[in-house]
C-alpha cells in the first residue's frame, strides 16, 4: 500500500497541476480538499476520471467523492478495496 500512496501523490501533483508541491510535501493524512491541499470541485472530477483510467473503478455519484478523496490514506484504501486493473 505504501507504493500506491506514493504513486497517488505523484499522480495528484501531475494531473492537478500542483506546481508548488512535491511528493514529500503531502502527508498521508493531510486533508486534500478545503484547507489542506485546497483542491476544488473540478479537481474532484479529475480524480474520478483518474480512478477510472488508471484503476478501472467507476464512480457514478460525484457526491461519494467527498469521503473517498478525504486524504491519500482513504484514497489508497478505497483503491485497494475496489480496483479492477
Amino acid at each position, binding site marked *: 500500500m505504501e507504493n500506491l500512496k506514493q504513486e497517488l501523490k505523484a499522480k495528484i501533483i501531475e494531473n492537478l497541476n500542483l506546481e508548488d508541491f512535491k511528493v514529500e510535501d503531502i502527508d498521508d493524512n493531510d486533508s486534500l480538499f478545503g484547507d489542506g491541499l485546497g483542491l476544488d470541485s473540478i479537481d474532484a*472530477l479529475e480524480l474520478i*476520471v483518474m480512478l477510472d483510467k488508471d484503476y478501472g473503478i467507476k464512480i457514478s455519484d460525484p457526491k461519494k467523492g467527498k469521503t473517498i478523496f478525504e486524504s491519500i490514506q482513504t484514497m489508497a484504501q478505497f483503491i485497494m478495496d475496489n480496483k479492477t486493473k
Partner: protein
Amino acid sequence: MSKGVAVTGMGIISSIGNNIEENYQSLISKKQGISKIKKIQTIHKDVIKVGEINYTNKELITLLELPKTNNYSRTALLGEFAAKEAVKNANITNINKYKTGLISATSVGGMDKTEKYYYSQFEETKNRKYIASHDAGDASKKIAKSLGITDFVSTISTACSSSANAIMLGARMIKAGKIDRVIVGGSDCLSKFTINGFKTLMILSETDCKPFDENRTGLNLGEAAAFLVLESDEVVKKENKKVLAYVSGYANANDAYHQTASSENGEGATLAMQKALRVAKIKPTEIDYVNAHGTATPNNDHSESRAILNVFGAKVPDFSSTKAYTGHTLAAAAAIEAVYSILAIQHKVLFPNLNFETPIADTALVPKTEVTKKEIQHVLSNSFGFGGNCSTLIFSKT
C-alpha cells in the same frame, strides 16, 4: 419605467418547434422535446436525454436553398433558419434601408463538423471545407451574408449567457444611436464535444431534467437558435411597425467565484438582476414572471434560488424554467427564452416548470407548474454562463 428598445420581429427553432407558432403550441400544451439522442453517434446515446431538433442537416440545407458545395455547420444552419424567420416576422423587405447589424452568439460554432472530419481532413480533401467553418464567427458571417447585412457583424461567446449579452449589446447600440436596427440572438447545435465535456463534469441527467426540484440530478443538453429584431423608435415610426415588446432592462455581472460553478449565495446572479431592474427603472414587485435559468443542476438551481430570494425577498414573483421543454441550449438559451418571455407577454400566459415535484429543502421556492393565464407587464429572464458570466434581461409590454 424606462421605455426600452422595440422588438419588432422574432424567429426560433428548437426541439419543441420549428417556428414561433409551433413553439408556442408546445409550451401551452405541455409538450416537451426531450428524448434519447438520434442524430449523433456517441457512446452515451442510450444513457443521456437531449432536446434535439427534428430536421436533419440535409433538410435544413434544402429549406435554406443552399448549394451542394456549402460548408455550413449545423450551428450555422439553425442560426440562419431562425434569423430568416425573424427578419420576415419583422416585415423587413429592404434590409439596407437603414443601418442594420447582426450580433450572433455561439459556444459550439462549427464543432459538430470539425469533430467528425478533423483527423480525416489530412487524407480526404473533400471534407476540408468544414474545417474552415469551425470558428465561432463563421456562423455569424454566413447569416449576415444571407441576410445582406454589412454594416455591423459581431459574435459573442460567453457560454450560456452569450445570446443575452448579444441582445444587451444590440439594445445599447440602438440607444446610443450607433445603429438603426439589429438582429440579435444565438445558435448552438448538439455535438460530441459538448456531450462529453458535460458528462465529465457529471452534470448531465439520465432522465428528463427537473428544474428547481430537490431531487434534480442534472441538465439535459439541447440545440436551438433564436433571434430578435430590435429597431430604433425612429424606424418603428417611419415604417409604422408593430412592436411586440420592449427590451427595457439588461445587465451583466461576474460571480467571481469559480470557473464553472455558481457561488453559494448567487452573488453574480443577484447583482445582474438588481442592475437590470435599475436599468428598467422598475421595482422588483413590478415583475410578473421570471423565466429562470433553471438548468436543473444541483448547483445552479440552488444558487439561483438564493439570488431570487435576495432580490425579491418575501415577494417572489411567479417563476419557471422552460429548460424541461427544450433542454439547455447553451449559447442559444437566452435567445429562445427571450422569445418565450415575449410570447408570455403577448398571449398573457406564463409557461410551466415541467417535472417539478418537491421544492428544494433549503430555499422552499415553488415554481408554477401549470400553464397560467395572467396579465403580464414585465418579464425578467436569467441566463448564467460558465466563467461567472451572469446576465439578466427584462422585457416589457408595449
